[in-house]
């Protein structure tokens, strides 16, 4: 399986039988016998077996709908091709995930999706990855036509580009089933069908909590981080750095897309579902509130209180560290170690907290070291 596919599918490879599930079945995937558990879907078993079955509407956090038809496979219990994402396993099933018939369907479908997208497909989107991996049938001309949308709204985080929407409803199902605020829904009919809010209001005037999970789950880039939208076509080529969120104590893992030349964080994404504690989710602060990092208000030079003017003035690091050290040494000499206090930080790293208490204890001989940790 190619690397980008592995990244997308890692979650399914980790599937283990649910506790209590006892009935073990055998399913033949592309001729190979595979063990499965009652209640699993063909897609889960096929992906665990390493088969490259593409999907667009599937997100393992959501109830499967079988809407996009990309995951169609041949199964011995059905005359027609079946959507593997919602087709249950049965003992003795014979399943073909890459037969000529399946491939023909897959490529034709991809051609239809591609035909209804604006000029360039968003690189790195699940649609683009599927097209690159599975090929597109020739001979389907572009039928791209403007889609109905909703008026641009004032929120600064989430942008909806209706022309890229394939109506897979992952965003609305995520909003309903995972975030459980149901701020967006599929609305209108026929060619007017689109993603709507109540009365087509802006997201700030809905129940939306701006978590951005809709952006992360969108397979085409129809939903995009508003600040990153002007660079949408290059986002997939930016390097990413996996780190831990600096806000609350959940410890969400996040992937920062970085512009190395400018030293900027361009966007924040969650690692794929099933791979980390946050299971593909982030909240509004983790995903969107990193603006403080490169903010012009940041302190950039050490400052010392000028003894004559009383003002804080820039200094070198050596001067500032010498002054800080001598102030602490003098205070200890005059008043004793108990007159010193070291307030470390529950925002700082373990290593930093360790050095802070070591500074208090080993260097200044006091246990007066604490931080703002109340829970």
């Amino acid at each position, binding site marked *: 399986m190619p690397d980008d596919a592995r990244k997308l599918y890692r979650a399914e490879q980790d599937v283990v039988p649910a506790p209590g599930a006892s009935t073990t079945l055998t399913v033949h995937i592309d001729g190979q016998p595979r063990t499965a558990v009652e209640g699993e879907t063909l897609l889960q078993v096929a992906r665990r077996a390493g088969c490259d079955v593409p999907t667009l509407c599937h997100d393992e956090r959501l109830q499967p709908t079988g809407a996009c038809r990309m995951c169609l496979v041949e199964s011995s219990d059905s005359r027609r091709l079946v959507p593997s994402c919602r087709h249950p396993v049965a003992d003795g099933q014979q399943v073909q995930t890459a037969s000529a018939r399946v491939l023909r369907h897959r490529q034709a479908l991809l051609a239809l999706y591609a035909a209804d997208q604006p000029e360039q497909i968003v690189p790195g989107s699940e649609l683009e990855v599927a097209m690159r991996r599975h090929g597109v049938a020739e001979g389907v001309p572009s039928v791209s036509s403007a889609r109905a949308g909703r008026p641009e709204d*004032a*929120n*600064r985080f989430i942008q909806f580009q209706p022309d890229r929407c394939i109506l897979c409803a992952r965003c609305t199902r995520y909003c309903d089933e995972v975030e*459980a605020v149901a701020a967006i829904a599929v609305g209108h009919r026929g060619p007017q069908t689109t993603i709507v809010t109540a009365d087509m209001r802006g997201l*700030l005037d809905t129940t939306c*909590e701006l*978590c951005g999970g809709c952006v992360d789950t969108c397979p085409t880039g129809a939903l995009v981080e508003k600040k990153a939208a002007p660079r949408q076509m290059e986002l997939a080529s930016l390097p990413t*750095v996996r780190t*831990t*969120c*600096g*806000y*609350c104590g959940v*410890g969400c893992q996040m992937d*920062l897309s970085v512009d190395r030349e400018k030293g900027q964080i361009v966007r924040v994404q969650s690692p794929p579902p099933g791979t*980390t*504690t946050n*299971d593909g989710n*982030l909240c*509004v*602060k983790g995903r969107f*509130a990193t603006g*403080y990092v490169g903010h012009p208000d*940041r*302190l*950039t*030079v*050490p*400052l*010392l209180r000028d003894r004559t003017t009383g003002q804080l003035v820039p200094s070198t690091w050596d001067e500032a*560290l010498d002054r*800080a050290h001598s102030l*602490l040494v*003098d*205070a200890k000499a*005059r*008043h004793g170690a108990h007159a*010193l*206090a070291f307030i470390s*930080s529950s*925002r*700082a*790293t*373990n290593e*930093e*907290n*360790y*050095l*802070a*208490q*070591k*500074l208090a*204890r*080993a*260097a200044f001989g*006091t246990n007066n*070291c*604490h*931080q703002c*940790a109340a829970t």
Partner: protein
Amino acid sequence: MTNAISEIRDADLLFVIGSNTTEAHPIIAMEMKRAVHRGAKLIVADPRQTWLGGWADLHLQLWPGTDVALLSAMAHVILAEGLQDQGYIDTHTENFEAVRAAVADWTPARAEAITGVPAADIAAAARLYATTPRAGIYYTLGITEHTHGTDNVFCLSNLVLLTGHLGQRSAGLNPLRGQNNVQGANDSGATPVFLPGYQRVDDPAARARYSAIWGREVPSAKGLNLNQMMHELRDGGLKAMLVIGEDILVSEPDVAGLDRAVSELDALIVVDLFMTETAKQADVVLPAAAFAEKDGTFTNSERRVQRVRQAVPPPGQARPDWQILAALLERSGVEPVRGVATSALTPAQIYEEMASGTDKFAGISHARIEREGGLQWPCPTADHKGTDFLHQGGPMRGKGLLVPVNYRPSVERPDADWPLCLSTGRTLYHYNVATQTKREQGLLDRHPGCFVEVHPDDASRYGLRDGGRAEVSTRRGAIEVDVHVSERVQLGMIWLPMHFAEARANLLTIDAGDEVTGTAEYKVCAAAIAPR
């Protein structure tokens, strides 16, 4: 947390008390919603009608500060109706009779008179909790930020031990940590009581261990906790402070008196990202690196040690805290890490030195996290896979200690002059004192400034209108804020977010701390309100 976060989705019952989870821990709230979707029962105890409260099978809207009464009555019902797990109690706990005696008089009717929660709901909650397998308790600062915070926690641990809801997947006692590295800061020994790995400073063997590692004697004199430091500061007992990443003049309770005390310090050294209110008073201000500008580890609420990785360079000359602290250690003649030149120091080596003195993290290293992802302590050896839930096969200390608790009211209660109960907390769109979140316009669009939630009947009584302005005052100070008329708060209670330096909620709060932890009573004080 005794459980892992991923276990929440498989729980049969969630008892969430003093935690506005959807706003303060949104991702854990998603797991709770997932459990409820799956059919788990949800009990929420909170003075406010929180979002999660709206989802609950039972919402116990208790009067602020009456948790001990509520929880004692739940224990009473469990014992009176024989719903306890006597086998677990006999095998794995001690002091049962003392707790039985302590809760004997706490009938639900008596608790109703104090908490305002209907006796039938208290009894129903007790029965549901005791009789549902895989029942987990989740709490946050609504439990701990009281003068009886430790008592509250004992009441919860009593419920856990009486029912044996411990040492299993999805069942246990789970404090949700408020800051990214509350867990890790305590794990790493940045507390007056403990060296790294919760080894007590008053234990000579623990002191000897780190004295040997450092080549310097670990002091034995008792240290001050944060609340005690603030008292000493006010009383003039502290002369020099090094403050890293906390704006104490905004975040500490009853801040009015602190401004003066801080200005009288001989020395104040502040390490921070921004020119905070505290930094403005400093003799030396050292510019620090933000999380995305440095390497290291954070430890989350479920004890999982995870990597922080540098993605962008710090602005200007700003440096990570660990480099600043290493430079100060070096100037004091102490090697930041024994045997490593300060110029060649890495966070991985710092972690290694810390872990070398404690079994809890001895098996964890940066290299291992790089290979395997985050690891949950205890993790004593390099081939140990870490520990997802604690107390399997019985409490770690041997016998779980049941602790009898007496109900004590909050220090300051409403009276004729200060007729309202003021509580404080967080919102989804801001974080702590908002030094970070107020710099994100998209968040300010939702919550541009401070507001007070007032019950509709109180609003009419005090002449307040929704969207208008009001002055909220206590014995200690007054601030002006927007009015949100809302049934989320009870009659007689008002609520303020703590985030805004422009309207410092902590000019109002009371500087009274829990006797054991020193944690301040941010959740209850007496207040008055008037239109402006």
